[in-house]
């Protein structure tokens, strides 16, 4: 037997998606490790007010929510480590995760929740003055701008909300908006709050062209897209909220990403690689919020649990010596009842073990056992599939196959005793 993996699941990322996945996984008694390079709560922890997470009538804060989910996950036994995942090896069995500090860890499944990072505009001055007045985090830096003027670039929910937060400190917050007067991408509730706030100023039809400053930000240059005019605006800080890019570089060539780098998942949050799941903002999806990130995390963890249980099932079935009948059936396929009956009869008459596999509930396993559709009966001899039966099932037919498999086993060289290696079994001759 190959060495058992150290973990049932390793979760990459400590935002709402990863933390929720770790919580669900640990609660399902999986040995779960969460690895995150920044603190608990991910991006959500960089924003102070979370007004729209259900269950908090007065709203909550990102850091508080992050800490609370982490505590909940740890209560169920999840381990949480501060580290960075550098690389995955998804080809081998078990899968491995290479980290900066903890070395290489082995696991049955992986749940990817690396989230996004703020998108940069790449205008002159932005890179050079980053950390010197160019900011992507209002709650981090707001204290420094009391009684100053600052600019916020962007006009979606995050931009306007963070701008509103900054008005508690700065004496003037200029929102630089690419749209014509009166139009913001932010939802109406947020838009109205912005228009009602006396410290908010709006610069319409404009884009940021350059950030100027010797050692720190001194002013910005805006371009008016309607008139082509340039405008210089003296500000002490520039806050940029123009969306996000997924932190999925370390996954390229490993799992399927869409053109923008987001992870492509199925409904059960499975990725293009079996046993690898994804959750949260890093996935291709319609709405990127804390509530949907948490929901993805729950789905991914339940799907990962199912995968782990199926792997364990396969291992027990294929590690047992002697003969065994695996009958693949489905409650939706009537003919499969006959197969179950025939297999059970044959098993009883010959003293062979029989296990039933509901392919409707375990589609993943159908693939691994290379059974297209139920019904089918597999004759397993010493851990390898010695025969695949299909067609009309009778107890006699099944017993006949069992006998011939066993005779062959006695006459010929013994069938190689393999570990759970399903590839090898597929090459067995079909009866």
């Amino acid at each position, binding site marked *: 037997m190959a060495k058992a993996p150290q973990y049932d699941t390793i979760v990459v990322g400590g935002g709402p998606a990863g933390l929720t996945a770790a919580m669900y996984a640990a609660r399902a008694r999986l040995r779960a490790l969460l690895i995150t390079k*920044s*603190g608990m709560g991910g991006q959500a922890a960089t924003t102070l007010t979370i007004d729209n997470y259900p269950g908090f009538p007065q709203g909550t804060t990102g850091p508080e929510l992050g800490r609370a989910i982490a505590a909940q996950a740890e209560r169920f036994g999840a381990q949480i480590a501060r580290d960075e995942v550098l690389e995955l090896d998804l080809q081998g069995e078990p899968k491995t995760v290479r980290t900066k500090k903890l070395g290489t860890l082995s696991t049955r499944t992986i749940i990817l929740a690396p989230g996004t990072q703020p998108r940069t505009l790449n205008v002159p001055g932005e890179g050079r003055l980053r950390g010197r007045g160019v900011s992507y985090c209002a709650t981090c830096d*707001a204290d420094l701008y009391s009684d100053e003027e600052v600019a916020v670039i962007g006009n979606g929910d995050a931009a306007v909300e963070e701008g509103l937060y900054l008005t508690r400190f700065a004496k003037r917050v200029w929102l630089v908006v690419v749209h014509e007067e009166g139009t913001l991408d932010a939802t109406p509730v947020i838009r109205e709050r912005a228009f009602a706030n006396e410290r908010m100023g709006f610069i319409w039809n404009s884009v940021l062209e350059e950030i100027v400053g010797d050692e720190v930000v001194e002013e910005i240059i805006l371009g008016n897209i309607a008139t082509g005019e340039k405008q210089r605006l003296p500000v002490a800080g520039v806050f940029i909220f123009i969306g996000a890019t997924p932190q999925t570089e370390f996954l390229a060539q490993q799992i399927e990403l869409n053109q923008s780098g987001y992870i492509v998942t199925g409904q059960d949050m499975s990725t293009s690689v079996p046993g690898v799941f994804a959750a949260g903002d890093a996935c291709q999806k319609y709405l990127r919020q804390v509530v949907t990130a948490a929901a993805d995390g729950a789905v991914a963890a339940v799907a990962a649990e199912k995968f782990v249980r199926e792997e364990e099932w396969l291992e027990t079935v294929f590690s047992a010596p002697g003969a065994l009948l695996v009958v693949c059936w489905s409650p939706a396929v009537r003919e499969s009842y006959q197969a179950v009956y025939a297999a059970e009869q044959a098993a009883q008459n010959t003293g062979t073990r029989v296990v039933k596999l509901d392919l409707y509930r375990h589609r993943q396993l159908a693939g691994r056992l290379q059974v297209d559709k139920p019904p089918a009966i597999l004759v397993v001899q010493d851990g390898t599939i010695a025969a695949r039966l299909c067609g009309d099932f009778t107890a006699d037919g099944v017993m006949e196959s069992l006998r011939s498999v066993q005779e062959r086993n006695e006459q010929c060289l013994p069938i190689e005793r393999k570990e759970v290696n399903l590839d090898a079994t597929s090459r067995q001759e079909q009866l």
Partner: protein
Amino acid sequence: MQPVDKNNFEQEVLGSRQPVLVDFWSPNCEKCIKLMPALQELEQRYHDKIKFVKVDVSKNRRLAIAQKVRNLPAIHLYRNGERVDAVNDQVTGEAVESTIKQVLH
């Protein structure tokens, strides 16, 4: 890490014989709070060569602005009353340590 404010910054930082590492932080800044354990670890390792202090920016904003702090957390290193290096962006324990090593060289 010793807290320093606008009243003793001059004496504790600019007037220090040893090089000084200043952590500009704020209780509102989650990233700053997350960074602290790493800084404390560095302090244990380097305290005989560098003095570690912290400035709460929410109470000493003018001082921070005068020291050209524009984003948090910001780690500034001073020697002989002058700022010799700083980590302003992507501030991690590792980034701070490599800056410390450069300054000590």
